[in-house]
């Protein structure tokens, strides 16, 4: 009874209402010639099908497997990532931060939900949640435990709060026992969360 008792049984109504409100707005904007519905379709297609964490995984695996690329990536991530065809909106200025046995990096945006879209796509709900945004800077180790990751005290945690237009990608550690794997097999190991810093890459 502490929370609004209407919340649960009102949820479906609320969702149908959002559908109606968005539809009404889109209809108005199209009637006024302000937006092109085909452009909306193309935008949705881009983020549903073209831009997502597989892009970031390619960057990571190339850095793991190509020392010259890794050097370029650490020196100027924006340019090195663009070599692979990823660039633009919400990734105009990229920085890659590297995990090592002594350092673990974690990316957050406390003020809104800034996130490196060209390499990771749109952020997951938890990344945009008040819980993550509030706690990542004051209790990063507690947040990592919510993901099942307990770090020893002597591993330094570096939290990157994306307060400007610099976007951060974590370069996770390559796990042992992956020497013989193909690029494709390596890329499959690199999940979205390993590039935000809420997970480590698991050995295959």
């Amino acid at each position, binding site marked *: 009874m502490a929370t609004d008792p209407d919340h649960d049984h009102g949820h479906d109504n609320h969702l149908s209402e959002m559908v109606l409100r968005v539809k009404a707005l889109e209809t108005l904007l199209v009637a006024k010639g*302000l937006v092109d519905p085909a*452009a909306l379709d193309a*935008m949705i297609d881009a*983020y*549903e099908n073209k831009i997502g964490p597989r892009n970031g995984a390619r960057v990571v695996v190339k850095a793991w497997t190509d020392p010259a690329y890794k050097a370029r990536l650490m020196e100027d991530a924006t340019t090195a990532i663009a070599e692979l065809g990823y660039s633009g909106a919400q990734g105009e200025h990229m920085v890659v931060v590297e995990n090592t046995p002594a350092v673990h990096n974690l990316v957050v945006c*406390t003020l809104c939900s800034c996130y490196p879209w060209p390499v990771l796509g749109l952020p997951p709900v*938890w990344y945009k949640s008040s819980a993550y945004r509030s*706690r990542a800077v004051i209790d990063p180790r507690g947040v990592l435990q919510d993901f099942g990751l307990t770090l020893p005290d002597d591993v330094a945690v570096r939290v990157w709060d994306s307060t400007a237009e610099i976007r951060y990608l974590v370069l996770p550690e390559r796990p042992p026992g992956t020497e013989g794997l193909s690029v494709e097999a390596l890329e499959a190991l690199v999940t979205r969360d390993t590039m935000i810093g809420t997970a480590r890459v698991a050995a295959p």
Partner: protein
Amino acid sequence: MNGVHDMGGMHGFGPVEPEANEPVFHAPWEGRVLAIRRALGAWRKWNIDAGRHSIETLPPADYLRMSYYEKWLASAIKLALGAGLITERELETGQRDPSAPVATPPLTAAMVMPAILKGSPTHRDTAAKPRFAAGQAVRARDINPTSHTRLPRYVRGRRGTVERDHGAHVFPDSNARFEGENPQYLYTVRFSARELWGESANPGDSVHLDLWEGYLDVA
């Protein structure tokens, strides 16, 4: 502004709850909202900082209650109304004011991927010299602007170390008010967790923020 959006360091929001196999959108309307807000942005009636500020200025209880895309919808409407792209009357009726001309959308389907890949870089060339250099000790200023700022409360008054100079970038505080880009040097500043949160923090941990020159003083 010291808004509820500035939530770094707050308690009480519970655990972080990852979702297995999360879809890009949880319902088709979310994708429409994303696309509508960005397509309206192509009119260049506002900038990213004003867009963020329109979300920060939602009523605080709504800000915490609404989902991300609900906030984006509310913000798209606020921005479109504020820029005169639509009117309150049109919004209420859902009908175009017949006396208003029908426009031509600036963003077509063919332009979407090129626009995404181009983005909107905020780096600007400047003749000014940077005031700070990597390794220098700085202190975040004790300012409390009532309008948009990207200096979170949790670092104000705190001492950190410059790690990196990113060159000059558009200054959000002025840009959000449509008072010009006023590019300033932007620096990554490292703060030790103990400086921010006291003795109970892990001594090796740190928080790194990208802060404009106007947010910083010599320590």
